[in-house]
């Protein structure tokens, strides 16, 4: 009959082997997960203030956690498709030079010139890392850029970006919407009927809407847009 001590040894040996095997399995699983291509800077999971500052096309072994702030763009040629962060970088932890905007406007994507014309659907005051190219349709007034050109098509899924909560430290650019430049037309980036929960969404949203909503960041969701693969309604996981 086996003694209790040898039985214990056997159990420990089995446990050690199982643990080692589990480790190998995890390593293999990690290696087998596909790399995801990102076009430029983007927040890092779980969207609580960590940011990736690589301003070039690069790959990570993780998928975006909140598709409301990404669009899938085609970089063309050898680049293929990847994720482009279209939110306000400062919402989710970016620290660095930034430029103020008010309302939706065309987005410039030098890393994916073949992506076509893209719009930012953020209502109200927000930031981007770069200033727009000189254009008669982009007017700088009171420290922020206003878009005076043809309005983009309404896009329900893209408008969900306005539900994303910024981190607590976020302070939007100070803007008085009533001081908009002549010719500025407020724009509701989504369809009101289709976005019952898009509370601060439409035009005329207060500049501090994201700051008010601050507190916790990140959410998991699956929105999309333009050349984006559409998915279901985002499940807001951040602090409401």
């Amino acid at each position, binding site marked *: 009959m086996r003694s209790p001590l040898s039985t214990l040894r056997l159990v420990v040996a089995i446990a050690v082997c199982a643990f080692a095997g589990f480790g190998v399995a995890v*390593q293999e699983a*990690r*290696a*087998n997960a*596909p*790399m995801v291509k990102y076009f430029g800077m983007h927040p*890092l999971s779980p969207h609580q203030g*960590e*940011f*990736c*500052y*690589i*301003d*070039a*096309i*690069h*790959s*990570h*072994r993780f998928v975006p956690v909140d598709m409301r702030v990404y669009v899938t763009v085609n970089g063309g040629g*050898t680049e293929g498709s990847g994720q482009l962060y279209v939110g306000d970088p400062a919402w989710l932890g970016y620290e660095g030079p930034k430029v103020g905007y008010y309302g939706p406007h065309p987005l410039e994507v030098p890393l994916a010139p073949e992506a076509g014309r893209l719009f930012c659907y953020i209502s109200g005051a927000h930031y981007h890392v770069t200033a727009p190219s000189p254009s008669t349709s982009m007017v700088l007034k009171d420290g922020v850029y206003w878009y005076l050109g043809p309005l983009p098509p309404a896009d329900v899924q893209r408008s969900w970006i306005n539900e994303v909560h910024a981190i607590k430290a976020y302070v939007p650019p100070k803007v008085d919407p009533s001081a908009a430049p002549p010719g500025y037309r407020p724009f509701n980036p989504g369809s009101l009927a289709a976005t019952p929960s898009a509370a601060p969404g439409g035009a005329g949203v207060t500049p501090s809407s994201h700051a008010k909503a601050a507190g916790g960041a990140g959410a998991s969701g699956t929105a999309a847009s333009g050349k984006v693969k559409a998915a279901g309604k985002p499940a807001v996981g951040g602090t409401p």
Partner: protein
Amino acid sequence: MTRGLPAGPGPLARWWRRSAPLVVVIALVPVMVMGCRRSHVAGTPSTDMVLDAFRDSGLDVAGVANAEADPWGADLCSSGKISGVDVVICEFTSDAQLGKTRADAVRDWDSVNVDTGLVAQNQRTLLIVVDRGRQDPHGRAISKMVTAFKRVQ
């Protein structure tokens, strides 16, 4: 008599007999030095220029050394670690080979443990950066490298 070499009992011949070994050594030194130095690919930023640009950006490039170019299908390569991430810089004479190496590098990331990977091209010079183990979690060092790399002309 050997053509071109002084011979006979004259002073020049005596000088030559005494000094010939020294002259040969002096003549060979530049050849030996040139032989040790790698010849870069013309018309594209050299690995040395890229490393100088990295250094100017505040990156420590002491961990980068000359590397075998054959495994990368390149003409000349340097590789090593900068800020904990693996860096390979290669010069190519062939655009087709550059494209193949670029595609192969990206494809390989799917089967090895890479957390962050980046390939950038400046003319016919390729920069491959691979972060294993999240040594540069916010990509600040990688961002510096890419910015410096793109500026090199």
